[in-house]
């Protein structure tokens, strides 16, 4: 590090950029809690990319900004404050760093530019019907035939597969005594012959997740990241990065502010006085928790920058922010539920009800239940914490 960084000036620069360059129609999607999709994400990623800010978390040599962790955190915070969409994570935050760390030069040249510009859209093929929390028991198999793998099996819960070009996929390349061994990481093009994608109907009324069936899909060996049989290590590397996501509390605080405004607007009538004050108090309790998590997030960033170990902080952050954001969503549901929950889905059309403005509050409450399930469920995080605390 040479000259000291002026973080306040940096914050201002990011804010000016966000306010001037993020199109109002994109910000409106975020502000009204609508579902984000490639159609919304891509144009924003393109703007960021053209400004040189396509990949805040990547090193400069690969087209990243080279920002330190604190700058990245400020960037994320300001983006949330300005209602800019959080960048689509699968390429930028998950796969990109794995390729940078473990990929070949050829793979770096082939895959990183598309992630950076937003041209290529990625999804994550890890979970399977028989492999959820116990991911290592995955069974989708890849057998080697010359310079190709032939992949056979099924992935499930694959978010965004319906709008993705590629799926980074954990497959079993050999059967070993220990189930964490013999797993490899393959990059699979989703228009390959033998792939079929089926939507899963979820409780939120959005199309988010899919089943992905792989029927003798041929994948070039050149699309394997790193060593054969080492996929578990790469997968873990990636999940570790996913877990520090809990340090970014800014979007949740922003949702909390939106919810506070919702209460004021929805429950303005005197007959709602008790309901309003009860919900406002619950919201305040949630805010206190989020502020606690925010303080811990800052501790985590400081620790990482100083090269200290994070210990249990990522698990603590994941556990507490997931539950608290569910509380916030629940408060919003309680505010609008009587009016909107009965109008969840029109019977004569697929999807959620476009005729009921504000229905997103209901959908978000439903969707938010996933926060304690994916990314290491609450129970799994508690196992991790307890193991450390008890020493057994």
């Amino acid at each position: 590090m040479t000259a000291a960084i002026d973080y306040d000036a940096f914050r201002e620069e990011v804010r000016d950029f966000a306010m001037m360059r993020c199109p109002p129609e994109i910000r409106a999607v975020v502000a009204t809690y609508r579902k984000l999709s490639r159609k919304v994400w891509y144009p924003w990623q393109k703007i960021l990319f053209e400004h040189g800010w396509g990949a805040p978390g990547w090193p400069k040599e690969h087209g990243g900004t080279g920002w330190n962790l604190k700058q990245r955190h400020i960037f994320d915070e300001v983006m949330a404050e300005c209602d800019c969409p959080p960048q689509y994570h699968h390429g930028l935050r998950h796969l990109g760093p794995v390729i940078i760390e473990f990929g070949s030069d050829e793979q770096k040249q082939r895959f990183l530019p598309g992630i950076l510009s937003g041209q290529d859209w990625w999804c994550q093929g890890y979970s399977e019907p028989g492999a959820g929390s116990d991911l290592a028991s995955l069974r989708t198999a890849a057998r080697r035939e010359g310079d190709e793998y032939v992949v056979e099996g099924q992935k499930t819960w694959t978010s965004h597969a319906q709008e993705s070009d590629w799926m980074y996929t954990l497959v079993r390349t050999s059967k070993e005594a220990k189930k964490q061994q013999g797993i490899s990481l393959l990059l699979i093009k989703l228009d390959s012959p033998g792939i079929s994608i089926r939507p899963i109907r979820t409780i939120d009324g959005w199309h988010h997740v899919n089943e992905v069936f792989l029927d003798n899909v041929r994948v070039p060996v050149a699309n394997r990241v790193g060593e054969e049989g080492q996929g578990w290590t790469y997968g873990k590397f990636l999940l570790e990065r996913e877990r520090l996501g809990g340090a970014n509390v800014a979007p949740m605080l922003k949702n909390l502010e939106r919810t506070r405004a919702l209460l004021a607007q929805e429950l303005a009538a005197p007959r709602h006085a008790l309901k309003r004050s009860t919900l406002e108090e619950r919201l305040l309790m949630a805010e206190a928790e989020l502020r606690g998590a925010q303080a811990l997030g800052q501790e985590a960033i400081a620790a990482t920058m100083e090269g200290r170990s994070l210990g249990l902080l990522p698990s603590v952050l994941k556990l507490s922010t997931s539950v608290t954001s569910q509380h916030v969503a629940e408060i919003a549901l309680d505010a609008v539920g009587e009016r909107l929950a009965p109008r969840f889905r029109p019977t004569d059309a697929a999807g959620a009800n476009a005729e009921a403005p504000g229905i997103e509050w209901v959908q978000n409450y439903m969707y938010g239940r996933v926060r304690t399930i994916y990314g290491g469920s609450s129970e799994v995080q508690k196992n991790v914490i307890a193991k450390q605390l008890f020493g057994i």
Partner: protein
Amino acid sequence: MPFTAKPIIGGDAFEQACSIGLAADTELAQIADATEQAACLRRHWDAIAELGWITTAIPEEAGGAGGELSDLAALVGGAGRGGLPLPIVAACGVLPHLLAGHPAVVAPLAEGRFRIALIPTEAARDDEADALRFADGRLTGAVVGIETPPDPTHAVVVVEDALLLVAVDTPGVAITRYQRIDGRPSADWRFTGIGADTLARGEAVARRAAEARDLGALLTCVECVSAAGALLEQTIDYLLNRVQFGVPLATHQALRHRVAEMYVEYENLRGLVSHALRTTAAGGPEAWRDIAFAKLRLGEAGRFIAQSTIQCHGGMGMTEGLQAIRLARRIMMAEFEYGDRSVQAQRLLVAAA
């Protein structure tokens, strides 16, 4: 290696306060007789004053040690972990702040000659009719459940816009003594038209009292985070050693998860309190908000940790015999000091509106 809690502010002062706290708590727990208990507390109080604890945050020009907020936090944190059943936050933090500029009271407070109970404007009362009134230099009214040092010599009273000093032996002062749920001394006070020393009057009194109260809330949070850390350690230790169904309780996932939840609450609270400590030390205008959020969280997290500790100890959790359980009661009591959850929530809501 099982979990060990790290103090928010450690160091010699923390260690000393912790071992004195432990000694006092342990000694007190072995005495059944109320008079002997009072004598025990008084001995420890005099020892603390002798050690100069009360001078910690008093400026040097007023004869104090001129310490900073972090010095207070170390002291209070140590006492909290040890379970010292004495009003350290009030004596070392709140009263010196409130009485700044009154050397005639601060000096004997620091030396331990004046053992002062603080009666704030918002002190509880049994009946609205008892509300404190101060007119024509005379104080009337009653308050209940006031935390007090052993054998109080004085009360400092904030009433309307006045800061008063009342000697206990003034005719017309009646006190009834109690022990709080955390074993600390407390008293009801009744004043019947007594003459009181007016230390100060005017707007500045209310401002100063509000600041002192926030300082009290913050230090109480520090104290309780420290106690909560000890609760976690002791609960883990208990579960590792208590055998039922042929295995240590620590092998059962239901209990392990409960402890993990305690830890998450503890960490969240610790993060928030450390943050409030930093913003208060920096003197930012919004520091009160951080304190209010911290105290609000203490109400939730503290109670969860205290109740879980009791639950995980089974029948032993219902006894006064374990330090963990005494600390749990201390945390439960803290809710009612310097503004409970609804007080803090209300001021935050008013500010947000």
